[in-house]
């Protein structure tokens, strides 16, 4: 099973977009089925007399989470190809708090405001109007200072599994178990808060609930942003290690998709390394380029034209492994794209086979290469989708 379907080239963009409408249909449908077209029901979560928001959200998250990491574990789903929201810790925390404020004031979140609107709720439509204004406001006050904050606390494609050092599937099951316990607690909270028909008494009970919830939420938040939990990382200038042409060639031939190759040579390239992506050299100095475009768990190989070429300062956030192709493309040409003079050593034989592979050329004296150390894989179209909001 090669999931996800779209990224593995099972169908094209048009079909993909059509299927996406269906997915959206399911999304809107279930939101409305849960009663999320009603602001009163949504807001009730924050007064603890209706915990539907919590129940629906965490059931949904847990279901999908166990599904995703389970499928990944059995090798059906390629995690490298799915969109994992990059972490920009500070704007996400601040944005989250502000969204929470907006949520309790309007009674909706952006998604539910859409659902409310199509069920006839005028307050939902007004909320959508507000969201539009807010979006425009953000764009038009996007000063360099805001932009800098917007990209601060960048940690790339980090998961909480990596943060806590757990296997993602194990963590998913742990979270599912914790969620189950929380649901039992939620049922109790709901029942307890509703017991009093007297509104004021209900509010008194709710106050106690706030303290509890507040303590939990604040401790969790503190834990997450504390140095032992998640230390904010800064980008630093690095000197990349060397990566040999032979090794790179082997990676490509074996179909190992754990490296990303960036070709820093400018202009039209007559010849290039298969799978390499051309990149403006200055981008390597931009930490946000790394966090937005490069998965942190992949090795990166930068290709200059030769070892003489000056490459801009490479500034990456922590955890990235960046290499320079030793000798640049010049070396690749001489090692891989040039037929070896004599075939004597094992390395010569390997170079011969690689030469044939990468140039598609018939070789001089077709030597008997004893069972090659590598097995070329049939390449499928692997697309990395840029998702998120």
């Amino acid at each position, binding site marked *: 099973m090669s999931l996800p379907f779209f990224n593995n080239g099972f169908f094209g963009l048009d079909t993909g977009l059509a299927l996406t409408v269906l997915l959206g*249909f*399911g*999304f*809107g449908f*279930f*939101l*409305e*089925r849960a009663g999320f077209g009603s602001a*009163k029901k949504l807001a009730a*979560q*924050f007064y603890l007399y209706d915990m539907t928001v919590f129940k629906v*959200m965490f*059931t949904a*998250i847990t*279901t*999908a*989470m166990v599904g*995703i990491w389970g*499928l990944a574990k059995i090798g059906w*789903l390629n995690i490298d190809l799915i*969109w994992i*929201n*990059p*972490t920009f810790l500070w704007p*996400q925390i*601040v944005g989250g*708090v502000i*969204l*929470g404020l*907006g949520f*309790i*004031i*309007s009674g*909706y*979140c*952006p*998604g539910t405001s859409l659902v409310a609107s*199509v069920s006839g709720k005028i307050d939902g439509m007004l*909320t959508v109007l*507000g*969201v539009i*204004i*807010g*979006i*425009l*406001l*953000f764009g038009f006050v996007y000063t360099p200072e805001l932009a800098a904050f917007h990209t601060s*606390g960048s*940690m790339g494609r980090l*998961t*909480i599994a990596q943060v806590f050092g757990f296997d993602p599937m194990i963590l998913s099951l742990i979270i599912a178990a914790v969620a189950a316990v929380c649901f039992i607690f939620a049922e109790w909270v709901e029942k307890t808060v509703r017991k009093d028909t007297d509104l004021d008494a209900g*509010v008194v009970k709710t*106050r106690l609930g706030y303290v509890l919830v*507040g303590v939990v939420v604040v401790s*969790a*938040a503190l834990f*997450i942003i504390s140095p032992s939990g998640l230390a904010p990382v800064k980008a630093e200038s690095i000197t990349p290690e060397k990566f040999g042409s032979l090794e790179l060639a082997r990676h490509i031939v074996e179909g190992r998709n754990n490296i990303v190759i960036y070709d820093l040579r400018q202009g039209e390239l007559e010849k290039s390394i298969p799978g390499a992506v051309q990149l403006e050299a200055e981008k390597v100095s931009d930490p946000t380029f790394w966090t937005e475009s490069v998965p942190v768990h992949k090795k990166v190989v930068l290709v200059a034209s030769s070892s003489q070429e000056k490459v801009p300062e490479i500034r990456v956030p922590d955890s990235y492994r960046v290499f320079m192709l030793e000798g640049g493309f010049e070396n690749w040409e001489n090692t891989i794209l040039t037929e070896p003079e004599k075939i004597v050593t094992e390395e010569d034989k390997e170079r011969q086979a690689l030469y044939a592979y990468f140039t598609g050329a018939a070789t001089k004296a077709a030597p008997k290469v004893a069972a090659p150390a590598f097995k070329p894989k049939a390449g499928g179209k692997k697309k990395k989708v840029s*998702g*998120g*909001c």
Partner: protein
Amino acid sequence: MKTEDTHTPNKLWNPYVAGFGLGLVLLAAFVVMGQGLGASGGLARVVVQTLDFFAHDLIKDNGHFGKYVADGVQPLMNFMVFLGLGVLLGGFISALAGNRLKLQLERGPRASKKTRIIAAISGGILMGFAARLAYGCTSGQALTGGATLAAGSWAFMLAVFAGGYALAWFVRRLWI
């Protein structure tokens, strides 16, 4: 023939069942398209496209929106937009089938219409701004990022609950 009963809404689904259904849709999104759900992103693109129609120069030079129109890219040819379209359809059909389709200004028992209107718009403004800042809203960050265990998304999720609960007491007159 229903008369005064026409707007008695049908019973809502059990939250765990609805949540499970939602979770399957979220999972399907990843399995089929390699990415999760979202709402604010699609809305933002529609906004950008609309504005671009009237003031292209303003949009293309904008530090935040410029990328949506750079190099002749069409903001609307994007998963988020088509998702949003589906959300509107799905929500509508569910409301229709559930007898919950009704033009109304829903508000808490102690809130006036004017208060509700101001609250809806201002709350929306905060959320629109926040969703851009946080790279998504509850759909794109909490639900989607939550399922993929994305660290920033989990932090966002906790922050949303924290913000909501922190302010709830002070705006209780809107709802209870």
